[in-house]
């Protein structure tokens, strides 16, 4: 199971990097989102997939059963998913704003803030 999941993570990372290297803004943002999901999977798999029972200490037991899964990575991922969702929403809004203000979503043309020459900088609107 770990091997299959590792391959899935690897493919996700590769696709994410591919998307990040594209010209369109939307593809880049999807790339970031995919990267986030791949990372979440990575946390999940890296700590092992060997647990079989819920990580709850029952009424009689004093310690966690050794068959229980590690709950911490799941808590981490939950947090990371929430944060990731918020950031994804923000970046989509930003991309929308970018298209609305600049009229295109081609990152090769977004070079005004780097240019040395003031005359090429955008007029304030």
């Amino acid at each position, binding site marked *: 199971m770990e091997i299959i999941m590792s391959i899935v993570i690897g493919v996700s990372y590769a696709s994410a990097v591919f998307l990040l290297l594209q010209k369109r803004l939307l593809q880049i943002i999807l790339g970031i989102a995919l990267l986030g999901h791949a990372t979440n999977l990575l946390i999940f798999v890296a700590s092992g997939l060997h647990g079989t029972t819920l990580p709850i200490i029952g009424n009689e037991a004093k310690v966690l059963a050794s068959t229980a899964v590690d709950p911490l990575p799941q808590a981490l991922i939950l947090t990371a998913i929430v944060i990731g969702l918020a950031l994804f929403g923000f970046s989509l809004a930003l991309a929308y704003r970018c298209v609305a203000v*600049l009229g295109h979503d081609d990152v090769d043309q977004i070079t005004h803030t780097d240019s040395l020459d003031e005359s090429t900088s955008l007029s304030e609107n």
Partner: protein
Amino acid sequence: MVPLLTAAFAILSREHPVVQRCLSLSGIVVLFIVGFILMGQVLEHNYLTVQVGGWEAPYGITLIADLLAAIMVLFTGLIGFAVILYSLMSCKQDGFSSAFHPLVHFLLMGVCGAFLTGDIFNLYVCFEIMLMASFALLTLEGRAEQTEGAVKYVVLNLLSSALFLGGLGLLYAKVGTLNMADISLIVQQAVADDNAGPIRLAGLLFFVSFSVKAGMFPFFFWLPASYHTPSVPVSALFAGLLTKVGVYALIRLHTLIMPGEVLGHKLLLFMGVATMLIGVFGAASQMHIRRILSFHIISQIGYIIIGVAINTVLSLASAIFFIVHNIVAKGNLFLVSGIASNAVGSEDLHKTGGMWKAWPQLAIIYLISAFSLAGLPPLSGFVAKLSIVWATVESKLWWVMAAVIFTGLLTLYSMIKIWVEVFWKDHPEKNWTLTVSKDNKRLLPVSFLALFAILLGIGGGPLFDICMRAGEQLTDSSGYIRVVLGAPQ
């Protein structure tokens, strides 16, 4: 906790600008005072810890303040105070949306949280809070330039966050804990057993991620592309604080989480020198006030990184002192340049001039902070740079010392370039007069910071002693570990 409360109240009062501003100001004053109290407490006890929720370390989340964290929180309060004061007095006041104050406080919350946490996942969460607030602040006015700068800033920072998270997952898988003190023990054990391969991988991911956030060579491109676009108080806040959080995380990584030679200090040293030189060359070629200052942030980060990389008590102390000096001087320069360009009508150095005659008080304050940044005595930058040079001499790294001094000269050059172009030469248009009123009230926050720059220079001794103690704490992490985990290990 103070910024969180303030932010919440500030959101609630968004319909009433006056109430919101009063709340915001009082919130930051309280934060500043709390910073002082914390500093006093830490000076007395060396470490303060809180186990959140009552779970004992390493299972619960620990908040810990050592000297480094206390210093950082104190100066976070200082720069936050100056920035909010500035925004209150700025002429463009009405242009600020009601979101500004809550966002600033969320940002401060993230920054202070990152300084105080003793849990590596908590550090990640605080980074994200800080990033989210900074994204929103960056795009607050929604101008085309800001959107452009924000795209680059957002993409690169999200990428580095993903790397951080990935490293975190791998590290947890290997060591089974998220408590930084606990990790440190296990990593030391693993290194002793020569079994640190996966840990090094995770450490490398952290290293790249923090370097992106600190704006180090070769990951600095997002910084000069975005820092000059937002409104002046926002960019002053960013310049003073955000990259410093990245540096802070790097310090923690190299002294506590992966102590000793787990990650090469040589690499860090090379990157520091390269960062310093590239930043100052970039600044020398620019003709836009805030872009010059943005490139200088990078170059200053280089100095701090060199201090971290040399990794002696003295060099760490000088790195910490440099961070403090830089927060004050850099934030102030951004604020002064904001007032100046607002008064003169442009940020392009070709179109400015005549400010010395028009507004000498402002010119003097600029000179103080610029010379402080360039490192002329008796200002704070002199102490900071001198101590870095000392640290290089102590470690016999002559080529680094040469680079440090050379960069200092170039810094002076570009600071003087701004001085000549904005203040000294005549304005390019004849019969030019100031269009905004010379309201000396607006000089209050900047003169406050300039005063600090002088104080840090003349009376820098006590603070440097504190920095030395902080450096000792950093080079010997056993005290930190003992305090967090409670029992002698």
